């Protein structure tokens, strides 16, 4: 009903009629609604979905064993037999890139989870308890932040040696300050809100408070950083592979494949092109998604 009907109203009504049942408007739903409107973010989400499927079904998609060397078919340009060509060892680059999806995503996920659990938790604790706890934690984070992230990660890996656990640890320590800072800010924002104060007033326990109230409400910010950090860790891995630290051959991680291929950039560019493309697509997708999430959860920033 309205005082005056305009075409704009009819459009909206038409849209509303299509929707079968009215949905309750939770913050998450509102965020999803905003996210869904963001076309670039949806593209990101779809690409990420496809990548996850590729990672899961890698053995079905990849035509060859990713470690299989065939010195009778070295450095072949892309063909029907080898979609992305072969590398200097006659390995099928397509298969390696497909398996690489699995390795890269999983390692990136490990790194991100580790970062979120260490830095994120510290941030939540600092934000929640405030006062001295906050000061101590944040001053420690200041210390970590004094060393540039990639340099910190490389120093740690160079000391601990190559390998997935070492890499995860390095990325975790290196990203701790940023993670802690962001999560703390998110918690502080929630903490200031009225309903947390009222929950406190009715005597909700601290752990319960963090788990049931703070984390779900700060979840938006955490999801943004989670997605964003997946891209960051993939980039960090490829940088470290370039320097020659982090992961060791023959793990089919994109950074390593890319690093193998970069030797042939001018003579056989396809060896570098495909892994670089995968890294680019993946990071792009995560970044687009992250950007969409940022707008969705934090509409004020747009």
């Amino acid at each position, binding site marked *: 009903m309205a005082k005056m009907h305009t075409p704009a109203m009819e459009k909206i009504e038409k849209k509303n009629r299509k929707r079968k049942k009215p949905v309750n408007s939770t913050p998450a739903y509102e965020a999803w609604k905003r996210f869904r409107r963001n076309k670039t973010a949806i593209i990101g989400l779809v690409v990420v979905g496809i990548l996850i499927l590729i990672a899961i079904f890698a053995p079905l998609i990849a035509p060859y064993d990713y470690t299989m060397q065939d010195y009778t078919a070295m450095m072949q340009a892309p063909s029907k037999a080898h979609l992305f060509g072969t590398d200097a060892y006659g390995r099928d680059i397509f298969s390696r890139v497909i398996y690489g999806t699995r390795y890269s995503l999983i390692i990136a996920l490990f790194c991100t989870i580790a970062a979120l659990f260490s830095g994120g938790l510290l941030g939540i604790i600092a934000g929640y308890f405030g006062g001295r706890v906050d000061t101590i934690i944040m001053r420690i984070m200041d210390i*970590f932040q004094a*060393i540039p992230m990639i*340099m910190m990660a490389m120093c740690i890996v160079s000391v*601990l040696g190559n390998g997935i656990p070492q890499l995860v640890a390095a990325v975790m320590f290196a990203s701790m300050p940023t993670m802690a800072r962001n999560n703390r800010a998110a918690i502080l924002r929630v903490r200031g809100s009225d309903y947390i104060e009222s929950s406190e007033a009715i005597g909700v326990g601290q752990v319960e408070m963090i788990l049931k109230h703070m984390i779900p409400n700060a979840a938006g910010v955490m999801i943004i950083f989670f997605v964003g950090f997946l891209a960051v860790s993939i980039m960090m891995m490829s*940088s470290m592979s370039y320097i020659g630290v982090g992961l060791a051959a023959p793990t089919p991680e994109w950074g390593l494949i890319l690093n193998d291929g970069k030797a042939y950039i001018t003579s056989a560019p396809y060896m570098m092109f495909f892994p670089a493309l995968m890294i*680019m697509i993946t*990071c792009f997708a995560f970044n687009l998604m992250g950007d969409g999430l940022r707008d969705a959860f934090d509409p004020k920033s747009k």
Partner: protein
Amino acid sequence: MLKYIIKRILLLIPILLGVSAIIFILKTVTPGDPARQILGNSATEEQVQEKREELGLNDPVIVQYVRYIKNIVTKGDFGDSYRTGEPVLSEILPRLRTSGIITIGAVAIGAIIGIILGIISALKKYTWVDSLVLVISMFFQSVPEFVVALVLIMIFAVNLHLLPATGITSAKGFILPMLCIGLSSVASYTRITRSSMLEVLGEDYIRTARAKGQTENNITYHHALRNAMIPVAQSIGTSLGNSIGGGMVIETVFGVPGVGKYIVDSITQRNYPSVLGGALIIAIVLTLINLIVDISFVLIDPRLKTTIIASGAKKPKAKAA
């Protein structure tokens, strides 16, 4: 104001002590015997033991740490490179200059492109232009920087013969490294500029300007931009410090003798004193730069004093509560 500056400088002490502690811990867990590394394989076991004693490696860890700090404070001794035997400090100082030049250039390139894209994107918000800008700026954030570097070398050095592929023997050599580092930071500047612009454009004083009959162009450039640049400038200030140590990969690709390459070389050479000493020096420099940036912001714009002092850190966003 003076009190604030003094307080900030005093706050440096625990941070630097903490950084040195982290570095020292890494140093102690580092594989290999430093004495053996210094003496080389031709040394006998007695010589090595003697050297260990001389270096104090047989002392308790805490004693070693105190001595480590003492050497840094009193003698500026960050350790000697295994490789050359030179003090790490004297090896790194000339490289800081090189990295500093590249950083300034890179930040300038990144900020200029980022700010322009950010403004365009804010003015054309929610249109295809906005999305296009987002995609362009994100492109360089999503491609590993060494790939960008190699492709740029291929284009500008190999094909066009315009710029040198590696090395910085001439001023031209600085261009590509600056461009690479700069491009990778475009996305973040674009984002900050865009959101800051949008925020400012929604401010009341913009409406006041409109009510004065001011043109949209003048509103954008005279009223909005100057205000929107405050957070951008702060982030430029912060990234000045961070990029100095962050150019490891690019400096390696281009063979630029900067601090990043020094650390990378030291890592591949397993030259741990150089890695860790270098990291510590860079951390100190970075912290000092951030301090100077903060203080100069406070001096330039007293309104920021409250936000910076209140948040106790560089991130103005953290003050949300």
